[in-house]
């Protein structure tokens, strides 16, 4: 069961983990909009550390360039696992 529906707004966790993660630095702390739930996959942060991975829904999340960079009229959509996200 996916926690977020398409159209929901979410905030990317701002933390800077000391292990592998798939959260690009440029979206950390930013608010985006869920475009779609993709599939459920093992969380790479767990797999990379040899831990039994949590398996979570991954979402396509869209951000506005103006918000990410302070300028630009494009959007950037990034795939993010559920535990990378919080309510805004």
């Amino acid at each position, binding site marked *: 069961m996916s926690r977020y529906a398409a159209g929901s707004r979410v905030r990317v966790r701002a933390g800077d983990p000391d292990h592998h993660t798939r959260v*690009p630095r440029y979206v950390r702390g930013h608010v985006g909009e869920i475009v779609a739930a*993709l*599939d459920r996959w093992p969380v790479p942060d767990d797999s990379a550390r040899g831990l039994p991975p949590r398996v979570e829904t*991954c979402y396509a999340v869209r951000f506005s360039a103006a918000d990410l960079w302070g300028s*630009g009229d494009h*959007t*950037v959509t990034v*795939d993010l696992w559920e535990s990378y996200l919080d309510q805004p």
Partner: protein
Amino acid sequence: MTSHDDHVHSSAAVRTRQLEERLIAAGLTSDDEIDEFLTRLYASASPVNGARMAARAWTDPRYRDLLLSDGNAAAGQAGFDGLSYQLRVVANTDQTHNVIVCTLCSCYPVSLLGPSPGWYKSFPYRSRTVREPRAVLAEFGVTLPDTVQISVWDSTSEARYMVLPARPVGTEALDAEQLTALVTRNGLIGTALV
């Protein structure tokens, strides 16, 4: 190709070989296993595969709907079963132009687009495409009107993205083979119009 590109490519090859040697020394794989994997991967990987799917979507609205809603099912119908990733296809329209990047590494649907070009793996492409895609596209010769929204897709998960280019005007009389020939690898990445 410039000498700078040569340097980048050769140092990547050296680093790759060092990584392979570490994995082999650790008993995790062997040269034979790596060769077999690469042979299998590249034997059928070609941008003609993605081009065939795009051309079919131009002429068959039901196939287009399937391609955009369930890329893997659409790939299966075109004879490409068992993709090792979730295929997501995004369509260019009069209002939106899509472009694919992988800022973390160089993810890309190899089986449908063929081996990725050197520039796709380069730091400038990966860092600038999310920041100033209009300028990057202009350097590829793609100048879009300001009214066209650019949508960048950063491939950070197990999904792989492919662009469905817009069908060029004046191609009504072409057959499937001729339409397929119009679709380039860069068109499927979003760094070219077709």
